[in-house]
C-alpha cells in the first residue's frame, strides 16, 4: 500500500501544553481510497486533520502528499498542494450566494470568472445544490450547508478531500444521501477521501479502510469488518473488554 499511497502520514505528534493530543500516528490513504479516522471524543482526530491541513505544524513526523513533503505548510499552501478540507462547525461565506461560495474555491485553478463559474455550477449540480445557486449562504439549512462545505472544497480540484464530521447533526435519510454522494464522487472522479466521523452507519457504508485513534495513539486499523471485531477497539468504545460469553 505504501508504494501506491497518495497521502502518507508518518509518525506525527502534537503536544498542547500538558496534553499529548496526537502521539506518533502513521497511516496512508491510497489513490481513490476512502479512509475513516475514528475514535472516542478527544482521541485526536480533529488535531490529526489539522496537522495534515496545515492549521498546526506537527512537533515530530511528516506528511507526504503524492511524493511531496507538505509538513508544516500553511493551510493555503496545503490547499494549493492538493488538500481540501471541510470544517466540523461549518463556515459558509454567509453574505455571498451559494454559487459565489463555490466560485471562491474554483478560483484556485483559474483566474477567469467564467471558467470558475462553470466549474462551480458543475460541482453544485453534483452535490444537488444547483437550484440553490443564487441563494444567500446564510439562509441554507444545515444539510445544505454541509453540502456547500464539500462543494467549496471540491471546487479547488483537490487530490484528497478531508471531511471533518460532515454527517454530524444530519438525520438518517440525509446521512444515507450524503454517503451516496461521496461514494459516487470517489468512484467517478477517482477522488481520495479521509474522513473523521462519529456516525458509524456512515463510516461502515463509506470507508474501505479504518484507522482507530485513542488518547492520541493509533490502536487499530483495517477493513471495517476487522476493526469492528478488534477487542482493543471494543474496549475503548465500550469501556471494558466484553466478558467471554457477553454480548
Amino acid at each position: 500500500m505504501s508504494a501506491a499511497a497518495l497521502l502518507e502520514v508518518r509518525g506525527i505528534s502534537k503536544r498542547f501544553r500538558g496534553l499529548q493530543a496526537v502521539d506518533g500516528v502513521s497511516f496512508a490513504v491510497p489513490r481513490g481510497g476512502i479512509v475513516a479516522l475514528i475514535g472516542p471524543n478527544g482521541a485526536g482526530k480533529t488535531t490529526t486533520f489539522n496537522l495534515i491541513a496545515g492549521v498546526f505544524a506537527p512537533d515530530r513526523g511528516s506528511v507526504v502528499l503524492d511524493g511531496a513533503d507538505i509538513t508544516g505548510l500553511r493551510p493555503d499552501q496545503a490547499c494549493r498542494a492538493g488538500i481540501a478540507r471541510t470544517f466540523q462547525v461549518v463556515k459558509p461565506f454567509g453574505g455571498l450566494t451559494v454559487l459565489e461560495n463555490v466560485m471562491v474555491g474554483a478560483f484556485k485553478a483559474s483566474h477567469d470568472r467564467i471558467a470558475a463559474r462553470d466549474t462551480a455550477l458543475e460541482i453544485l449540480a453534483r452535490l444537488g445544490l444547483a437550484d440553490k445557486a443564487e441563494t444567500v449562504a446564510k439562509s441554507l439549512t444545515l444539510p445544505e450547508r454541509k453540502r456547500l462545505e464539500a462543494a467549496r472544497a471540491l471546487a479547488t480540484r483537490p487530490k484528497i478531500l478531508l471531511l471533518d464530521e460532515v454527517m454530524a447533526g444530519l438525520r438518517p435519510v440525509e446521512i444515507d444521501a450524503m454517503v451516496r454522494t461521496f461514494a459516487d464522487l470517489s468512484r467517478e472522479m477517482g477522488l481520495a477521501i479521509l474522513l473523521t466521523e462519529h456516525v458509524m452507519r456512515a463510516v461502515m457504508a463509506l470507508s474501505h479502510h479504518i484507522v482507530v485513534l485513542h488518547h492520541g495513539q493509533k490502536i487499530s486499523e483495517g477493513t471495517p469488518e476487522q476493526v469492528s471485531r478488534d477487542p482493543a477497539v471494543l474496549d475503548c468504545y465500550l469501556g471494558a473488554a466484553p466478558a467471554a460469553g457477553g454480548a
Partner: protein
Amino acid sequence: MRLPQRAAVALALFVAAMLVLPLFVDSYIVSLLVVVLFAAYFGQAWNIVTGFAGQLSLGHALYVGLGAYTSAALFSHYGLPPWFGMLAGIAVAATAGAIIAALSFRFRVGGVYFALLTIAFAEFTRILFDHFDWVGASSGLFLPVSSRVGLDLLRLRGPPVMFYYLLLALTLGALALSHHLLRRRIGYYWQAIREDEEAAQALGIDVFRYKVAAMALSAAMTSVGGAFLAFYENNLYPDTVFAIGRSIEIITAPIIGGLGTLFGPILGAFVLTTLGEAMTSLSSGFALNGLKQWCYGAALLLIVALQPAGLWPWLRTRLGLAEVRR
C-alpha cells in the same frame, strides 16, 4: 428590461444629472456638492479595505494627510505640478498602508485591535507633522490662493466648479474600479476573507497577501483625494488634516449608504451632506447651542436602526435594481 440594463440606465441618468447640475445651481450649492463628492470618494476608497476585505480601518485620515502634504509640499517647495505630487503621494500612502497592514497581520492583530492600531498610526503621524518644519509644522502649509476666474488644470488652480468636475470624474473612476475588482478573483477573495478568514485560507487564499493588498490600494486611492483636498482648501494644518474626526467622517457615508456595496458610499455622502444642511437651516431659528448636532445624531441613529445594512440595499430594491448584486 433585464436588470443589468436597468442598472446601466439608472447609472447613465445619474451621471447625466451630475454633469449638468452645476449649470442650474448657485456657487454655494456647487461648494456643497464638492463636499459631497469628497465624502463619496473617500468613502469609496475606505470601502475597499473595510467593506470588501472586512478589515476595519479607523485611521484613514492618515492617507488623506500623506496625499495632501506630499503634493502640496512638492508644489510649494519645487513648483512640481500636483499631478506629479499625486503620484508621489500614492507611493507614500500605499507604502504606509502596506507597512501598517503587514505589521498588524504578520503578528495576527485583527478586528478591533487592528482598528486601534490604525488610529494610533494616524495620531502618531499627526504629532510628527506638528513638528515637521519642512511642511510648516503646527503653523501650517499654505498654497497660493486659487484664482476664481482663471483655470489652470495643470496646477489645479481654478474655481470650485473645476474641482466639482474633477472630483466627479474621480468618483466615477472609483466606482468603475470597485465594480471591476468585485468581478475579479481578488474581489471574490476579499469578500471570502471578510466573511470567514479560516475558511478562506483553507480554500488556498494567501490571506495575509490579499489583506495587505486591500490596505495598500485603499490608502493609495485615499491619498489621491487628499491631494485634491490640499489644492481645494489651500491650507493644511496637521491638527485638521490628520484629525481623528476626519477618519470618522470618512467611514460615516459608506456605513449609512451600505457597507461593502458599490453605490452605498455615494448615496451616503449625498444623504449626510443634505441632512447636515437641513439641520443647520432647521435649527437656525432656535437659539439653542448644539441643537443641530443633536438632530443630526438622532437622524443617523434612526437610519442605522431602521436600515442596518445601509440605505442603498433598501433603495436598490425600491428602484427595481435589487437582483444586481454587483
